[in-house]
């Protein structure tokens, strides 16, 4: 009598299904990973359309009406007299110096500032070339005190939400950019070491060892100190990206070297050589493609680490500098005026939750990809 094992569901698969389509099928079954992916798409869309979603421009603030650390303005939907639904509005805020505590206090006045959707305001360019001046919401009037601060104001009286949205552009780019750059360096160096062997191999592997022996934060600070403090803010971003890439390539180079050394001895490489393929072709067409899945998985799993590191550097004040801003440098405001003043303005912590959300999504996605490419975890 023959019995079929119950767990083996033989599915009709078309022949010649590629590794990627198998992985994609696996990935689609993983609900957590899909959630992570969707979260990332949303947050990247948010970064892309930040100028439109934000009610203000990156660094516009009033020099006459300084709204330093203004608390979030509640949005009202009902008319206080009649109780009927009205167009959403915020109260106009006035500032008063409390003569007992000498703290500037914000008080809501009775005057209403209605919120309009699709108002014209500060002009911007999406992706640097699509011009516009339409904003999702805003009061559309320039009166002092008539600001919609959904999550409060920051140290110079700018809208914290606007700053957070703009910050996402930098926070989401630098981490990913640094991972891509360090992957390229790592692959190149690993291939170099495996291919040439001998002295090149020793030098590269020793360099990897040395870089990992120095505490990464100090190496980062040391490298940053090579450049003057007051460099162009845009250049500073590239510097940070470069430094992050420089300290991050070691692990991948080591794995690449090991993998290529083992692949070099395999039959398909010998066959390619026997057929007269050039070194270049063997490397690019036959040896490096064996690394593809490994690279996809490590890429997605190392992005969260780099995003955290970038936020840390910006927090320390050596990443994104004014006028540019990243989530980390927004969090640095929490320290302004001593930690005990954090009590009076807890909303400055909100940008941190964007970091947590992004990193969480990348982790879910990375874990999902790892499982999808792992034949032992196939479902």
């Amino acid at each position, binding site marked *: 009598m023959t019995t079929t094992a119950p767990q083996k569901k033989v599915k009709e698969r078309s022949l010649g299904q590629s590794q990627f389509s198998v992985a994609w099928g696996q990935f689609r079954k993983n609900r957590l990973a899909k959630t992570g992916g969707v979260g990332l798409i949303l947050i990247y869309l948010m970064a892309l359309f930040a100028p439109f979603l934000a009610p203000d421009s990156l660094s516009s603030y009033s020099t006459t009406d300084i709204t330093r650390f203004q608390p979030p303005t509640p949005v009202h939907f009902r008319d206080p007299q009649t109780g009927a639904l009205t167009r959403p509005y915020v109260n106009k805020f006035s500032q008063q110096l409390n003569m007992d505590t000498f703290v500037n206090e914000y008080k809501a006045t009775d005057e209403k500032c209605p919120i309009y959707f699709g108002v014209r305001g500060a002009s911007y360019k999406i992706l640097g070339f699509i011009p516009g001046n339409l904003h999702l919401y805003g009061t559309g009037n320039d009166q002092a005190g008539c600001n919609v601060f959904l999550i409060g104001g920051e140290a110079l009286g700018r809208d914290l939400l606007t700053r957070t949205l703009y910050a996402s552009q930098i926070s989401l780019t630098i981490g990913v950019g640094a991972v891509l750059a360090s992957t390229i360096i790592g692959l190149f160096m690993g291939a170099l070491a495996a291919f040439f062997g001998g002295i090149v191999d020793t030098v590269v592997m020793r360099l990897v060892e040395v870089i990992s*022996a*120095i*505490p990464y934060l100090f190496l980062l600070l040391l490298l940053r*100190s090579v450049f003057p*403090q007051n460099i162009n803010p845009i250049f500073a971003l590239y510097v940070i990206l470069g430094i992050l890439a420089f300290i991050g390539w070691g692990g991948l180079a080591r794995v690449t070297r090991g993998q290529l050394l083992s692949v070099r001895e395999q039959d398909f490489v010998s066959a390619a050589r026997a057929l007269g393929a050039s070194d270049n072709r063997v490397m690019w067409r036959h040896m490096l493609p064996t690394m593809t899945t490994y690279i996809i998985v490590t890429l997605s799993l190392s992005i969260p680490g780099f995003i955290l590191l970038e*936020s840390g550097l910006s927090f320390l004040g*050596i990443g994104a500098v004014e006028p540019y801003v990243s989530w980390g440098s927004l969090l640095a405001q929490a320290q302004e005026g001593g930690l005990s003043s954090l*009590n009076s303005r807890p909303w400055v912590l909100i940008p941190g939750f964007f970091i947590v959300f992004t990193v969480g999504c990348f982790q879910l996605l990375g874990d999902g990809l790892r499982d999808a490419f792992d034949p032992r975890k196939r479902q």
Partner: protein
Amino acid sequence: MIPFLVRRFFQAIPTLFLASVLIFFVISLAPGDFLTPARLNPGISEEQLRNLSISFGLDKPAYVQYFYWMWNMLHGDFGTSFQYTQPVLPVIWPRIVNSVWLVLLNLVFFYAIAIPIGVYGAVRQNSFGDKSINVVLYFLLGFPSFFLFLIVIYFILQIRNATGWDIPLGGMTSNNYDQLSSLAKFWDVLRHLLIPAAVLALTDAAGLTRVIRGLMLEVMRSDYIRTARAKGVSERTAIWKHTFRNAILPIVAGIGGLLPGAISGAGFVEVVYNYPGITPMLLTAINAQDLYLIAGFTVISTILLIVGNALSDILLAVVDPRIKVG
């Protein structure tokens, strides 16, 4: 054991040598040389400048300068900090000691959190407790340490306002530290260290807990554990003596590799907590372009790391008797 240690010592030398070359190379990339800040300082005379310039061989090619620098360093002379106009070593040494205390206490918490939770997760695999701990830890992985610490500080402030407890919120010592007895001094420092060390350990422990859980699960399925159980050893012995001791070997081997991350991670918390450790001083040194101070910190912490690596190898030899033979 002794030959093993000797071999380990000699293996560390090239790494240390190359690290110092890298650090020197990076510093010489910086605009100006070591004496640029000194030249701007009217308090330093021409005579002193010339002496400094000769003692560091600034008139000679770069590799000769390196050997001068190295030679001075081997004699305990790390150069002069231009910010403090003092030799570097006495300036940075107390800071390094402070940071080491924080890192050590952090490591104690780190293992005290990760080991029991990881073992629990493996022993009660897929139970409700295991799953909920996993979710919490996964969530914690996404928090930058300084952000979690800021949140903790916010809650401490609330507790302080509500109850009037005197929970320390920064620094390493209280104002009246000098008048305390030595036991009270110890308690005072410990009280200041507890919260930052615990928060730091919590953010880091998430990763290790998952590793320990995985390793434990792997070992628990092996034949010799079944044999031990069949022989009738108690559950406790089976888990802690037979499984755990074998499962932690990769972790003991990894302690050394953990230290660079631990020191760097502590740096962020030091900045938030206003703790007199390495990183806050390093940041001011960067603003002041005080290169000798930066180099001193980097060299000494690299030496400490390599020592830590060697120690973890020795520890591994203690835990795993097979190492000593090889």
